[in-house]
């Protein structure tokens, strides 16, 4: 019988930062997203839209532009005046080059991918040459009077359109001289005192320039004559972003009201060859400003201040009409931000610049299914730990006994020792850090809290032994072959013998901790790993992938278990495979080896390996059947996947002990309440 007391936790005040820029890379089908706190995330759109890599943010880095260049190189530029290149293999920042033009507002890579253009605060447009290991300043274009807020290259690379305040200039890219200037009206049909800010420009191959501005207009210009061809008023508020498809037959714009409009090139009459741009579809998936849009061959991607990333596949471009063509909204992180110390009932919450430690409340009452039990002791906020420096925290962990806390930023590693006396706790920082321990991508403590495992960004895995006063370095496992596919995930077995590490394209590596050598490697799978865990006693490694497949691999036997083979042969239920969000945590019941508990954002599931598997015809979401039905029917409809959707959206679910679960939820309204104000919309009847 599975009856649990559930701690419903809603005091994790997690607020994601708004999305500022989005850049789509066609060759690898990847999306780079940068947020207002400087974090840059890479989503793999072909791996079920999983966030595979991320670069932590920095307080001084306010990114304003992001772009991909030739050879899968990612560049960003921001208000601190620097152009930053990201190393996607080492997961660090390669270098930062100051453009010496003041804050940088816009950046565009040339169609050939070998040149980079930045628009600066002082009105200058600077051209950089991309060399194999760095970028080199080449030339300044003619300086304009006001800040350059948007840039666009002509597909042939001969001309450049730059949007500024109240005008658009067209440059010749070979000589750098301004050959034309197009003045933009401040308001559609009228005069206005507010200056018109050109938020986005796009240059098409037939010489048309499309501009979007703060008066809510989408204007189509002819750059050869410098005249306005067509004027569309799409909104009362600013239109803040524009993206054109590769075939140049459609483009998408995002407004400050949260609406995304799709424009398409349509023939005037069905027989004529003359075409014009027509606004075809509006989409209202956002509540706040849409500051970034991108156009992939089959989908429209938008992101804004309301922190959702929305990917809307276009029906006419999708080949097969299945669940892949549904709207995807990515709101919650694809990795764990909560760690749990089970014995002391402590939760560690990871924020951008601080950590919070809470002790759960307790109750003495009992009740039946569905009751809310009153707390005899409230949840306690024990610790608020701020990290020094402007960088964001990458990862954090608390040891299962609750005595150690470790966290890491991009340049420093912090380890703290906690002591509990009666009701007080005292904190001591371990100050002497070894030189090679700079930053960590993932941190994990062993079950008995004697060892610390750190996966660092050079690909190596280090093992430390924890002592009373500090810690000593035991061993470093060298990086294995294979490219870095996603962020490293670690799992350690409860008896402390085995350590599993994922993240490379070679598969999941399993190390023997006692003998300090590589034991085996789970065969590689083409989708990245989203969660890893090793079961007690049986030492089965359970792996969840981003396409919702779950594998079970026996470490001592070095092969997949029988149950896993059965599941793969039969296949998962189609509703299980159609889930949107990845599984982020797997845990086990201490007394029942047949149970696996896993959760994603909208459900948590207890897999009972002893029960039969559901086939596609049975009902997957099986609520408790009514008691008046006979036992036979109950047994017939029961299957291995016990799913509950009662608590959502979930950030973390774990089994504290045999009879207690903890579920950390984050209601969406609480996030919306702490976002910047949206545009006022007048609704009839209010």
């Amino acid at each position, binding site marked *: 019988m599975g009856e649990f007391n559930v701690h419903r936790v809603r005091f994790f005040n997690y607020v994601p930062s708004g999305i500022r820029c989005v850049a789509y890379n066609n060759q690898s089908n990847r999306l780079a997203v940068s947020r207002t706190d400087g974090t840059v995330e890479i989503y793999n759109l072909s791996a079920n839209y999983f966030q595979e890599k991320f670069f932590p943010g920095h307080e001084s880095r306010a990114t304003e532009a992001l772009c991909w260049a030739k050879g899968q190189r990612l560049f960003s530029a921001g208000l601190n005046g620097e152009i930053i290149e990201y190393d996607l293999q080492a997961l660090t920042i390669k270098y930062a080059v100051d453009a010496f033009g003041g804050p940088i507002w816009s950046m565009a890579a040339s169609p050939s991918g070998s040149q980079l253009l930045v628009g600066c605060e002082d009105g200058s447009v600077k051209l950089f040459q991309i060399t194999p290991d760095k970028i080199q300043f080449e030339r300044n274009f003619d300086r304009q009077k006001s800040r350059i807020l948007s840039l666009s290259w002509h597909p042939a690379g001969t001309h450049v359109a730059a949007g500024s305040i109240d005008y658009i200039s067209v440059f010749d890219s070979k000589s750098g001289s301004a050959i034309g200037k197009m003045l933009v009206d401040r308001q559609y049909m009228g005069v206005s005192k507010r200056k018109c800010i050109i938020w986005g420009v796009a240059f098409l191959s037939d010489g048309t320039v499309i501009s979007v501005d703060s008066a809510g207009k989408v204007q189509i210009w002819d750059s050869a004559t410098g005249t306005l061809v067509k004027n569309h008023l799409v909104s009362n508020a600013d239109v803040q972003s524009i993206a054109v498809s590769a075939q140049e037959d459609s483009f998408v714009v995002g407004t400050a009201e949260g609406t995304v409009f799709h424009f398409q090139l349509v023939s005037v009459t069905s027989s004529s060859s003359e075409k014009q741009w027509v606004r075809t579809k509006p989409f209202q998936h956002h509540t706040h400003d849409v500051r970034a849009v991108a156009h992939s061959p089959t989908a429209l991607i938008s992101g804004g201040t309301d922190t959702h990333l929305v990917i809307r596949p276009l029906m006419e471009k999708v080949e097969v009409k299945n669940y892949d063509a549904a709207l995807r909204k990515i709101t919650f992180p694809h990795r764990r931000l909560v760690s749990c110390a089970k014995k002391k009932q402590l939760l560690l919450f990871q924020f951008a610049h601080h950590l919070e430690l809470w002790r759960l409340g307790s109750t003495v009452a009992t009740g039946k299914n569905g009751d809310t039990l009153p707390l005899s002791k409230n949840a306690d906020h024990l610790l608020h730990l701020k990290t020094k420096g402007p960088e964001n925290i990458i990862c954090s962990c608390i040891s299962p006994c609750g005595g150690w806390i470790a966290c890491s930023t991009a340049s420093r590693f912090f380890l703290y020792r906690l002591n509990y006396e009666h009701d007080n706790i005292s904190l001591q920082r371990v100050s002497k850090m070894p030189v090679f321990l700079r930053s960590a991508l993932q941190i994990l403590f062993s079950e008995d809290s004697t060892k610390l495992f750190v996966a660092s960004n050079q690909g190596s895995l280090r093992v430390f032994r924890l002592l009373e006063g500090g810690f000593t370095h035991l061993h470093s496992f060298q990086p294995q072959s294979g490219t870095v596919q996603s962020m490293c995930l670690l799992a350690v077995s409860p008896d402390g013998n085995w350590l599993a590490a994922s993240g490379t394209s070679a598969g999941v590596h399993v190390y023997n901790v006692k003998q300090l050598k590589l034991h085996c490697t789970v065969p590689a799978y083409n989708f990245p790993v989203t969660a890893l865990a090793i079961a007690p006693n049986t030492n089965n490694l359970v792996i969840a992938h981003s396409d919702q497949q779950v594998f079970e691999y026996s470490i001592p036997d070095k092969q997949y278990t029988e149950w896993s083979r059965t599941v793969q042969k039969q296949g998962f239920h189609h509703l299980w495979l159609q889930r949107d969000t990845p599984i982020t945590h797997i845990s086990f019941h201490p007394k029942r080896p047949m149970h696996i508990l896993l959760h994603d954002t909208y459900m948590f599931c207890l897999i009972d390996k002893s029960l039969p598997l559901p086939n596609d015809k049975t009902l997957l979401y099986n609520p408790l059947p009514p008691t008046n039905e006979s036992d036979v029917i*109950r047994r017939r409809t029961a299957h291995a996947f016990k799913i509950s959707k009662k608590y959502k959206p979930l950030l973390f679910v774990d089994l504290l002990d045999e009879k207690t679960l903890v579920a950390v939820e984050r209601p969406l309204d609480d996030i919306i*309440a702490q976002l910047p104000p949206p545009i006022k919309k007048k609704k009839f009847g209010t």
Partner: protein
Amino acid sequence: MVQLRPRASRAPASASAMVDEGQPASEEEAGHGLLLGQPSSGAAAEPLEEDEEGDDEIDDEAPEELTFASAQAEAKEEERRVRETVRRDRALLKEKRKRREELFIEQKKRKLLPDTILEKLTTASQTSVKKSPGKLKEVNLQKKNEERGKGSDSKKAKVQKVQTVGQNKSYMAVRLKDQDLRDSRQEAAKAFIQNCLYGPGTNRTTVNKFLSLENKRLPMKKAAAQFLNNTWGPVARQALLSMGFSRQEHWSGLPCPPPGDLPNPGIELMSLALQ
């Protein structure tokens, strides 16, 4: 019905005769006829009289004889009068200008500090400038904070000296560490973006109102959403205050919390079907 007078040669007379005769006879006629006639009658009347007088005088007297001396005297008088008036005008102007200048000087004096204070300042700055090299020597032994404080003091004093001595120097000495050029531009850029998106003229609403919109359109109208936590919606709160009214009761502790939002709503019993 008009009877002409015997002087047929005088055309105006005939006109006046016409009019005179016409007035009593044609009173019933429309006014415009009379009106047209009247001014001309006035104009016609005068030359009639003058001619009659002129006729008499021209025939009788000869022109007067004036001596050369008297004429000269008159002319000289005229000249003297003209010169007098010009001189008087110039004198008046001069006086006016003098008075104005005095007024301006007085106003300027009022704006400046009184002399005593100015003297004090100049002596004080000179002495502090003399002191600062000594101070800097001492400072090496003290903590960094104090050093920075004293350094900035000496800088301020130097600045004051430049301003009050009144020489034509238009520079100001500042320490590079106190000012970060890059940061000031970055701050200006951030302020620009903030102004464009959230400044005056943008049509923004508060988060409160935005969340309440749904409540107002439901068939069972619910109350507007209000926050228990005072720190939520801070940007909106500033926007409200800047609009000129601050409704304190709007934000402080409230009877109706947002639905389902207590920090830890207790521990629930839940059972999963695992038969």
